[in-house]
């Protein structure tokens, strides 16, 4: 399938972290990095969903550009020189994580996603020792009105993966964002309780793609032995890519 997709596309050769790599003209830096086992941290990007460049963790340096560029949306170009992990970038990434932790009430020890949370894992991987910004401690709602799932805004990082998967893959567009700035909040329908949503199909895709414990299944925690969308994420995610490929072929 990949070979088929690559047919008729121009191939670009360039350098990432001193390593010669190549990709087709429609590929982004992050895609080529992943093919070459170069790790780039990200929270909003998810293979199979539209890239939005919002979390800013995948920023990379590209020689000749005075701005840092998000690897998830930047298309590859011939002869570009990409640096993915300079000290400057590492420093920025840790601080962005710290900002995320300071924003809402992320209390790992009591979180159902403890151990499989992408935010938590990144904090460890990127060496975040503590959050030096003052915590904001906002008072946020938990919506447990849905019969199978829970939304806990305290743990939401506004990556909008749920919004995108619901719109682009499930086609329901139950999720969206309300408010702006620090007041932004994910909502179901027109800010109705999730349990009363008329558009939600209860498919659970939003729960599967949520990187943190903001969207979870009731009566299950991350290490449950029975089927869990969160735990079985890796089994679920390739489905997104397949769906997108089907969609692309149709259009």
């Amino acid at each position, binding site marked *: 399938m990949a070979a088929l997709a690559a047919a008729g596309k121009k191939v670009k050769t360039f350098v990432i972290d001193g390593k010669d790599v190549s990709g087709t003209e429609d590929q982004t830096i992050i895609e080529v990095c992943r093919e070459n086992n170069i790790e780039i941290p990200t929270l909003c990007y998810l293979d199979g969903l539209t890239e939005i460049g919002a979390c800013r963790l995948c920023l990379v340096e590209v020689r000749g550009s005075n701005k840092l560029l998000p690897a998830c949306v930047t298309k590859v170009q011939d002869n570009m020189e990409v640096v993915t992990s300079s000290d400057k970038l590492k420093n920025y990434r840790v601080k962005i994580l710290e900002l995320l932790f300071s924003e809402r009430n992320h*209390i790992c*020890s009591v979180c159902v996603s403890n151990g499989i949370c992408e935010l938590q894992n990144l904090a460890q991987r990127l060496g975040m*020792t*503590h959050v*030096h910004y003052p*915590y904001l*401690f*906002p008072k946020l709602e938990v919506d447990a009105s849905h019969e199978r799932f829970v939304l806990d805004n305290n743990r939401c990082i506004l990556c909008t993966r749920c919004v995108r998967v619901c719109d682009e893959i499930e086609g329901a567009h139950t999720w969206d964002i309300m408010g702006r700035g620090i007041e932004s909040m994910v909502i179901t329908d027109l800010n109705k309780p999730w349990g009363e949503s008329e558009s939600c199909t209860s498919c659970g895709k939003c729960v599967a793609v949520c990187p943190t414990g903001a969207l979870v299944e009731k009566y299950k925690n991350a290490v449950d032995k029975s089927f869990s969308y969160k735990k079985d994420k890796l089994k679920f995610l390739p489905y997104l890519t397949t769906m997108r490929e089907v969609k692309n072929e149709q259009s």
Partner: protein
Amino acid sequence: MSKVKAATIWLDGCSGCHMSFLDMDERIIDLLEKVDLVYSPLVDNKEFPEMVDVTLVEGAVSSKEDLEKIKKVRERTKILVSLGDCAVTANVPSMRNPFGVDAIMKHAYVDTAVTKDIIPNEVIPELLEYSRPVHNFVKVDLFLQGCPPPADAIYFLLTELLEGRMPDLTKVSRLGK
């Protein structure tokens, strides 16, 4: 050679980090050959001594008493270590923060009271507006995350310090572990 003077204290925490400390088991005996535990909830000493080399702090700073304690400890300690998520992030104690002190006190002492429904103004220390991590109030030199940090991580921390190294602790523990 004189022994390294170490201390541990707990502020607003559950003592789980100290339990984890004890989980080092017989390794504590090895450590005590090089370390003198001069102050700790685990030993009987009423006054925090001067000139302590390293102090492990468990718990968040939640009350005026915590604040006074940690300030004194900081003054008397060379290397201050935040031990565990409560000290590093305020963790569970911080869960009261969005609600405000008044609501919390009312809930604890009035709404759910079984005997007398009054908010005590003596005996318990006055709460700060927010329960916050230790480094919000005093300088912290090392952070060991974990709820609680594993005994191995605490052992690693102490042995590294004894070797005169400031260890990278993000590899041995993480938030919520």
